[in-house]
């Protein structure tokens, strides 16, 4: 993965987290939640349940009003400057509103995430092409983002979120504008990154992507967890496997390979 992981037990750890937006909108109330490294977690719930707020807290776009938010072993209320920047490079966020730069091309939009890590331009080009190919956007490489449909913009946003090989991928309604076939492509992509060690937190109300899943599902309602299981004991075998994989780059798959 992109940066060295901390030795913390969990990739994400929330303890009694509350978030109030001014003047008095209670978005989250006493949410405690842990996500193991390498886990895929589905956050479900109706609109306004607090899913997006939770993801925003995990990327430090917002600060919690109460409680502790830890990501990769860092307490987000205490982290700033260079440490926060490095942590953010290890978090890929597929935003619900995409946050694409409309006057830039698809390739430039995806490159942003890699450029801030000073990735070589040849590597950026290669990764961008592979991602676009996988997501069925190979012919859109030089298309300005403003000329894309919403479904295409969503896929570009997902490509940008994973392009830097982050350790934590946050996806906010990643399939909201996609048909069944494209949804499958996106979920395949997420699975590939998860197999490589990425932790995924997917906020969704698209039942089709979590209906038959073996992964943990947490339901939020009015800012509280109403249905969910605690994180299983950390999978040490998984961590060992990751270490082995990181030590043998020849086993890189299509998505991570820079060749």
């Amino acid at each position, binding site marked *: 993965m992109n940066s060295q992981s901390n030795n913390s037990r969990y990739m994400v750890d929330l303890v009694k987290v509350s978030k109030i937006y001014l003047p008095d909108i209670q978005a989250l109330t006493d949410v405690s939640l842990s996500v193991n490294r390498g886990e895929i977690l589905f956050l479900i719930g109706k609109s306004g349940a607090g899913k997006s707020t939770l993801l925003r807290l995990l990327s430090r776009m917002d600060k919690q009003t109460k409680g502790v938010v830890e990501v990769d072993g860092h307490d987000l209320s205490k982290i700033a400057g260079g440490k926060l*920047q490095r942590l953010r490079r290890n978090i890929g966020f597929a935003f619900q509103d995409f946050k694409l*730069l409309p006057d830039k091309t698809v390739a430039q939009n995806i490159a942003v995430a890699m450029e801030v890590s000073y990735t070589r331009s040849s590597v950026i080009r290669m990764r961008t092409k592979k991602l676009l190919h996988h997501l069925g956007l190979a012919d859109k490489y030089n298309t300005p983002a403003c000329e894309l449909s919403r479904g295409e913009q969503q896929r570009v946003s997902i490509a940008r979120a994973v392009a830097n090989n982050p350790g934590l991928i946050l996806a906010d309604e990643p399939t909201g504008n996609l048909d069944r076939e494209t949804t499958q492509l996106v979920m395949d992509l997420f699975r590939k990154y998860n197999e490589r060690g990425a932790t995924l937190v997917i906020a969704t109300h698209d039942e089709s992507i979590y209906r038959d899943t073996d992964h943990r599902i947490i339901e939020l309602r009015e800012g509280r967890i109403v249905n969910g299981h605690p994180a299983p004991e950390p999978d040490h075998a998984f961590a060992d496997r990751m270490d082995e994989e990181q030590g043998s780059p020849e086993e890189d798959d299509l998505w991570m390979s820079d060749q």
Partner: protein
Amino acid sequence: MNFIIAVFTQTFRNLFQTWSAQLLTLITITLSVLIFAFFYLIYTNVQHAGQQLDDDLRLVIYLDEEPAEEMQEEYRKKIVKFDKVERIEFVSSKEAYGRFAAQLEEDRDVLEDMPRDFLPPSIEVYPVRSLDTLTKIKRFSDYLVSLPGVLKVQYGREWVERFYTFVKLLRIIVFLSGSLLILTTTFMVANTIRLTLLSRKDELELLRLVGASTHYIRLPFFLEGALQGFIGSAAGMAALFLLFNWIKLRFAVSSIFQLFEFTFFPFPVVIAIIVISSLLCAGGSFSSTRKFLQL
């Protein structure tokens, strides 16, 4: 992609994307530098001309009686105490008579009945030929007249005062155009950068979210400002050089050009103006990004 390449890529991308605003800023910087440098060039040349002035700057102190050896030394000390001088000459009544007679040439016989000491003894003070001395000459004269035994102090008053007024005016113009240069360059650049920042607000927010370092976000704007300053001031100096040569060629026969030698800035001064302008613009950009990005 290493840091420096990334920063330069960002800088040139910014410049390319906002070229119309950049062009306006460049023109403003060029004009400001041209105006300032034009007056500064006149000022330095006038200063140079002041140094070329000869005996017109001599102050003659008329005394009521011939000073003795120790009195001469006393005068010398008091004069030097006020300001540095090139030389001090004591002219006795007899020497003054001799000079006067020599000036009269064939008409010197009019002096036949006059006593040899009818002219007062005097001290001739030759101040150091610099603009500073020139501006201080009136005060110098007022000081000398207050010395004991001094009847009167004479110098090319009218000429010096006119020259002094002209130099004073030039100083004000140079000061004002210099201030204009500082204000326009920093303000214009800060404003252009602010507009660029506003137009790229979403991009900057995204850069922060994907973990761009402070330097990665800020340096391109800093470089952009410095580059604007460099190109603008270099263009301003080039325009002044062309203007200077054109004036020199056009008015080569004019008497004033034959009287004094007019020269362009020496190379280090040109470099200094360009460097200072670049720094001012970079400073403008720096303050703008600091305020806007709150980094």
